[in-house]
């Protein structure tokens, strides 16, 4: 899996608690992304980063924040977890190949909010 790890791989947490998911890459890619995957929805972009300290919102960013203090790490925080945030979360990375950006995905984190 292209030098991308996610931690934890599984987590169960209670409603209202903060949760942080970590994505770590060893590829030195500039772009990093957080997606969530839910049945019937495919992957939806939560936040993305185009460099250290440079981040922006995706289509489903409400309730989530991110930080990127180093090239290799991209953190996703659920500020106060809700049951609607139960999902599988994927991190991805990409780098320019000419004008194309293929993405490489981590193994995912399964989060359950009870």
């Amino acid at each position, binding site marked *: 899996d292209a030098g991308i790890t996610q931690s934890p791989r599984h987590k169960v947490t209670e409603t209202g608690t903060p949760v942080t998911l970590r994505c770590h890459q060893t590829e030195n890619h500039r772009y990093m992304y957080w997606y969530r995957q839910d049945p019937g929805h495919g992957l*939806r972009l939560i936040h993305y980063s*185009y460099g250290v300290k440079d981040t922006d919102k995706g289509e489903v960013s409400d309730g989530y924040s991110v930080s990127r203090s180093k090239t290799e790490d991209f953190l996703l925080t659920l500020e106060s977890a809700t049951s609607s945030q139960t999902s599988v979360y994927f991190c991805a990375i990409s780098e320019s190949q000419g004008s194309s950006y*293929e993405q490489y995905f981590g193994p*995912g984190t399964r989060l359950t909010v009870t």
Partner: protein
Amino acid sequence: SQQGEEDPQALSIQEGENATMNCSYKTSINNLQWYRQNSGRGLVHLILIRSNEREKHSGRLRVTLDTSKKSSSLLITASRAADTASYFCATALGYKLSFGAGTTVTVRA
């Protein structure tokens, strides 16, 4: 909102048969990519076709792109049990992708 929509949602075929799935999208793109996801795993990039290309091949995969109809198709020839997976199209604008909901392909032995 998602850019791409795959059709069909699910497909069951016999080993050795071909599998075809389609993707429609709504806005301009730089390129279109197809990914595969095995159960419980992350997505794996299969093939990319640029907006100025009409057809591309990679091994048993054939992808077509019709920008006038805003549609793409993925053909997997001579399917194998190992091709059982979900397949997603993703439209690219710059470095961001928008994924469809996927087609689940089951290859029966």
